[in-house]
């Protein structure tokens, strides 16, 4: 039946989350891969009237090992670079079919594009920018594991400074990636779309409410989710959520949203931890010297200052430990 645009409830606790699982188990994501948890909750929020387009990557490959699928809702994969284009086409087709009365015009069908960092920052960027500019009502979710994981941990535009990957090795000359992470969510926000957010699965209530808002707005929405990858980041899978939490506690990952132009930080961090707590948990940063860690800390300090200035108040507090 038809749902009004504001019918989705606000989630306040795990007990508010639907019990239905639209991502079946039996998928082959690595043990402890947070992508599985993120997609589970994305689909819980979206519900059965949803079409998902997935770019090539770990989620796509692991959930559709032919002739098996983990998707309990309609799902399509076309290529690595064009999830946004495929989603645009689906959204446009639904509009036409509803206008012609082939599909009930009151039926709400969610269209979600789901892609990794490689598929978003790099190869899929042009398709994404086109979707945003044309204004399709699509929720685009970027699950960011900070490298091309499916093909064996190659660096992407989302790989952070100094991180080891197989294409940013650690040796006499190279000490991991030379460049900073591209501020993709801010670049998306520059398209002036109705909703842009960053989210962290460790703060799942914040994350699911962002999914909810992203599905409600009339136009494109973009949600950038950090996704710890035990295999590529080199840590014991049991710490996946700990690592995610530390990303926010150190302000290496700030959870914010821009709703119709209004910027806010949704997870304030009154007392900030030193970035070393996050970095030292992961093998991809094992080679870092204290000097390099301080360089990252200074970069984060500047980011925090920029966020606080932008809001005109201190939402991310001083370093305490």
């Amino acid at each position, binding site marked *: 039946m038809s749902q009004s645009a504001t019918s989705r409830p606000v989630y306040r606790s795990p007990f508010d989350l639907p019990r239905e699982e639209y991502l079946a188990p*039996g998928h082959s994501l690595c043990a402890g891969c947070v992508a599985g948890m993120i997609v589970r909750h994305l689909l819980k929020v979206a519900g059965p009237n949803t079409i998902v387009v997935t770019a090539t990557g770990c989620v796509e490959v692991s959930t559709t090992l032919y002739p098996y*699928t983990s998707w309990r809702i309609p799902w399509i994969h076309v290529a690595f670079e064009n999830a946004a284009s495929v989603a645009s086409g689906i959204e446009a087709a639904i509009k036409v079919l509803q206008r012609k009365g082939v599909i009930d015009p009151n039926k709400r069908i969610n269209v979600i594009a789901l892609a990794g960092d490689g598929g978003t920052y790099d190869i899929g960027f042009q398709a994404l920018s086109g979707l945003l500019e044309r204004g399709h009502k699509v929720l685009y979710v970027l699950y960011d594991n900070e490298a091309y994981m499916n093909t064996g941990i190659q660096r992407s535009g989302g790989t952070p400074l100094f991180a080891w990957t197989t294409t940013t090795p650690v040796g006499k000359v190279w000490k991991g990636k030379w460049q900073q992470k591209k501020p993709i969510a801010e670049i998306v926000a520059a398209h002036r779309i109705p909703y842009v957010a960053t989210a962290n699965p460790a703060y799942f209530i914040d994350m699911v409410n962002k999914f909810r808002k992203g599905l409600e707005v009339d136009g494109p929405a973009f949600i950038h989710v950090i996704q710890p990858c035990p295999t590529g980041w080199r840590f014991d899978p049991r*710490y996946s959520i700990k690592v995610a939490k530390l990303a926010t506690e150190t302000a290496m990952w700030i959870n914010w949203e821009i709703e119709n132009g209004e910027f806010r930080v949704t997870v304030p961090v009154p007392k900030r931890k030193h970035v070393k707590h996050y970095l030292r948990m992961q093998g991809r940063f094992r080679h870092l010297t204290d000097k390099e860690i301080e360089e990252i800390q200074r970069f984060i300090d500047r980011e925090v200052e920029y966020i606080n200035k932008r809001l005109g108040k201190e939402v991310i507090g001083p370093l305490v430990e």
Partner: protein
Amino acid sequence: MQGKQLPKWNEIPPGGAILEPGNSVKRPTGDWRTFRPIIDKEKCVRCLLCWVYCPDAAIKIIDEPYRTASGKEWKFSVEVDYTFCKGCGICVEECPVKAIEFVEEVK
């Protein structure tokens, strides 16, 4: 597909479509496990965090009343679905009251 032949090229639906939603349940991942999470229903405070964080939907909510030794009544419990649990240990790590033990699987 164990023991079965893969479909021939002309038997595959157009576009390589898979017509049975969620059929990956026929391909259990429980045999990936090297450590087994075991939930202590006595200690568990039914917060659902393990259910939230499990990447494999391998924590089940069981709607059956449970009475602890100390007399506390619960309306439901959580159980690990060992058919799919990969033994990542996230639930063990995230349980706020340490109600989940992590025991090495031995043959």
